[in-house]
């Protein structure tokens, strides 16, 4: 793997994502946890940009950082008496840590055959083999770390939009998702509102 702007950016975003995530779970101050959550989500959004999914990256910033993380901050401010908590981790934290580390090790071991890039081809068939042939990579863009315009055309926003409203696409899941969101909206209001009486 040669060092290009892309790899440097990848490691920066990976550190942001993982470091932010780690601070979310170990930070003693819940308010800081929420801010680190935003950092982590922003790192993930950067990873999406590197993966040439600009639509998802923007939605990540809009939905996760602009809405969900703000909602979390709001909940923290509403329950701010709970912030002076001395013990933020419960008694089973060593066991939890062991489980998490074990999970990570198992996942990494399971994934280790993929270190060899050729193995990816063997496992997932010929789809990968012609991947690089299909991808129009702009030589200038590669050096500068900026995604070339052609590169963005793998799956365009238009295609996503069409897929969400065509019958052989995802129109049914899309409608179900809208119902889910409406139900969640109404449910959240009903659950959280104060009794009038």
């Amino acid at each position, binding site marked *: 793997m040669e060092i290009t702007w*892309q*790899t440097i950016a*990848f490691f920066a975003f990976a550190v942001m*994502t*993982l470091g932010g*995530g*780690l601070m*979310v*779970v170990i930070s003693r101050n*819940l308010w800081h946890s929420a801010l680190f959550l935003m950092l*982590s*989500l922003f790192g*993930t959004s950067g*990873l*999406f940009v*590197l*993966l*040439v*999914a600009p639509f*998802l990256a923007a*939605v990540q910033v809009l*939905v*996760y950082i602009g*809405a*969900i993380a703000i*909602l*979390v901050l709001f*909940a923290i401010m509403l*329950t701010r008496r*709970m912030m002076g*908590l001395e013990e*933020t*981790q*419960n008694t*089973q*934290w060593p066991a*939890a*840590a062991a489980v998490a*580390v074990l*999970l*990570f090790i198992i*996942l990494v071991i399971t*994934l280790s055959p*993929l270190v060899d*890039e050729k193995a990816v081809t063997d496992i997932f068939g010929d*789809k990968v083999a012609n*991947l690089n042939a299909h991808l129009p990579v702009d030589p200038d863009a590669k050096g500068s770390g900026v995604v070339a315009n052609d590169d963005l055309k793998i*799956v365009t926003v238009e*295609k*996503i939009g069409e897929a969400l409203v065509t019958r052989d696409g*995802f129109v049914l*899941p899309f409608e179900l*998702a809208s119902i*889910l*969101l409406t139900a*969640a909206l109404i*449910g*959240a209001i009903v659950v*959280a509102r*104060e009794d009038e009486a």
Partner: protein
Amino acid sequence: MVPLYFYLVVSAGLFAIGAYGALARRNAIAIVMSVELMLNAANINLVAFWRYLNPFEINGQIFAAFVFIVAAAEAAVGLALIISIYRNRQTVIVEDVNMLKW
């Protein structure tokens, strides 16, 4: 290009961190945040596999988009529940909310 393996390791790490947080934190809001981290790990996985294995089909991106929707719904309802519990019991510590356990 960065190999697929690296993305998967980042995703696995994020998932493990989220799992630890969900198991070990006492504050319910912190647990919601940890669950968000785990959903994010899943999303990184989905998008990475889409990009490296099947970049001309949209399924991967659509899946990730649906994860966003579910995450938004989950956060809204979850935080509403937490605020409701806080209002009734003056606590958001999950161990103190044991009304069903006698």
